[in-house]
């Protein structure tokens, strides 16, 4: 991957009262907005596996990105 540098337009402090770094999210929050890098078993389709995960985890919405036959791909929960 290409190495990118950062250009500074302005500097400002962020207000700690709003938002939080991604690493500080609770499990409940991760269940709403996280992603899983799933090592998909050979056989079922990406679509089927996505439906199974919905049965395992208490998530309202789930989707997958990068459809493949017998391989790896990421599943997004949102």
């Amino acid at each position, binding site marked *: 991957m290409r190495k990118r*540098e950062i250009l500074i*337009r302005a500097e400002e402090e962020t207000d700690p009262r709003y938002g939080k770094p991604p690493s500080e999210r609770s499990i409940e929050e991760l269940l709403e907005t*996280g992603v899983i*890098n799933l090592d998909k078993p050979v056989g079922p389709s990406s679509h089927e596996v996505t439906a199974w995960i919905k049965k395992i985890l208490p998530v309202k919405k789930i989707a997958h990105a990068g459809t493949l036959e017998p391989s790896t791909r990421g599943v997004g929960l949102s």
Partner: protein
Amino acid sequence: MKLHADVGDRKLRAVLKEFQGPIYQRPPLRSAVKRVVRVRRIYKIDLLEREGRYVLLRIWCEAGTYIRKLCHDIGEVLGVGAHMYELRRIRAGSLSERVNASTLQDIIDSYVLWKEHGIEDYIRKVILPMEIAIEHVPKVVIRDSAVDAICHGAPLAVPGILHVETGIKVNDIVAILTQKGELVAIGKARMRSEEMVSSRKGIAVKTMQVFMSPGTYPSLWKRKQ
């Protein structure tokens, strides 16, 4: 890949080399996208192993490359025919099979450990912050005061920008982040990186998909009474 007839090593290597670089592909009959010929870049093909007609390849390619099609086409050029025998995606962006992949069993186990025993460590390795999926996307970091407008779908104007990664061109997909590293939205660049820094006003990024809930940051923009 499985070859349909015997092929010498030298010929195979020569043909594999021909497939590195830009190639034309028409998506297969059963595909999720419009069937028009498109160009995909094959960055590199490594011949890892071969045993008779079975060939193990490692392919670095652009998103949207049909590997089944690629194997078929390699077979055509070899003149013997070939088909994809097995496929495994080993990496997509920063998601790789070695670093952060989980199996279905990992999902169940880590969920039960958290739900019934309150152990968080395992499920945190399975459910990753969404920001991991945009690690390869160029980033624009914005002021707290610009966040909520973007959450409501507004485009990003230049004054809201703090930092910009280099190399952004017009129409590139970029990620809009807070200073805390949270993904706010994905958008399409309307300026190059340098212009985002040097311009005094104007639209820098057109918002395409919002990921942060409105109200996470305060709304400080002017409301019409």
